[in-house]
């Protein structure tokens, strides 16, 4: 064995952790002061972005475990998880390649998930670690609540003098709760309507394409 091979052997042993190297404060200080390589341009920013994504994912996963009510309209579920995770609409919208306004409309129930492209909806499921089966009752709830809100909103406005531009989140939540209650007493049907089933089939395809079959169970 020659010197080169010995050094290769030593290097490999350290690299693979087969022989431990001592790491003291002075050694680490030295390595930080004279790093063996240079950090490429843009690396710091990319690492920071990756770290932010990891932290957001962890926060969403943790918050998702805490929100167990699957009778919530889909948008309200997203909003509850997002708020529990301590994330802003802007952060979530960026992850979904969407806008704050679109996300707000989805959270409030101004639009139902069915208005989204199946691919975009699949992205939401992936981001919120939500299985398709869990999302189904929430989509149905969204549609029903959204339909009811459309009916009750003008009534609320005319009776309460609520202007469109003055609609606060509190009023929206109150409308949600009211619509949900009215739907419960009026309609006990729980099956997903045909349009939802068709939409979910397309979302299923998107999840399969993305290799997220774990969300199909």
């Amino acid at each position, binding site marked *: 064995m020659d010197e080169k091979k010995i050094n290769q052997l030593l*290097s490999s*042993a350290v*690299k693979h952790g087969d022989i431990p190297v001592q*790491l003291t404060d002075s050694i680490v200080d030295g390595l*930080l002061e004279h790093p*063996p390589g240079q950090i490429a341009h843009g690396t710091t920013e990319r690492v920071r972005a990756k770290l932010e994504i990891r932290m957001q994912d962890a926060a969403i996963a943790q918050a998702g475990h805490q929100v167990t009510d699957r009778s919530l309209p889909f948008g309200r579920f997203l909003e509850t998880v997002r708020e529990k995770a301590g994330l802003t609409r802007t952060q979530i919208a960026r992850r979904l390649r969407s806008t704050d306004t679109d996300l707000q409309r989805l959270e409030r129930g101004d639009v139902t998930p069915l208005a989204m492209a199946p691919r975009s909806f699949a992205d939401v499921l992936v981001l919120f670690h939500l299985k398709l089966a869990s999302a189904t009752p929430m989509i149905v709830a969204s549609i029903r609540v959204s339909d009811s809100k459309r009916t009750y909103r003008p009534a609320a406005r005319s009776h309460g003098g609520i202007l469109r531009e003055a609609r606060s989140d509190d009023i929206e939540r109150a409308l949600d709760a009211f619509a949900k209650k009215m739907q419960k007493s009026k309609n006990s049907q729980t099956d997903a309507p045909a349009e939802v089933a068709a939409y979910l089939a397309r979302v299923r395809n998107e999840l399969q394409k993305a290799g997220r079959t774990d969300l199909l169970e």
Partner: protein
Amino acid sequence: MDVPEADAEEIASDVLFTVTRKIHSFKCGGRAKLTTWIYEIAKNRAIDFHRKTRVEEVEFDDNTRGGQNRESFACRNQTMLSWLEGELRDFSDADRQLLLWRGREIEYATIAQWLGTTEGAARTRHTRALAKLLEASRMGVRKAGR
């Protein structure tokens, strides 16, 4: 740590994420500085990466080249490793670290600082230690499992 740049970015973000999660277990004023603690996490992540890729490299070699280039994987050969571990036991701590760090191409000047010596002295010490190791390999001394 000899990790390709794209993988290094993943590992770096993973390390920082671990740091944010485990920071409560770091003892301020304990046996190591925060930077050393973080570096240790980074080193372990890099080792995990190399161990994972080592398996893949060997499999690639075996499947595609019929194992003809096995010699290039001699450095990872378990027998060689056992031999090296046995030999290194006969070295002082400082010489052992010197050999290992030089194997990772750390500058003599940096190692000299850690050892509290001059660059020239570190170079001489390394040359002697390496010569001793080479001599042992030539003599075919096998101390593995001793």
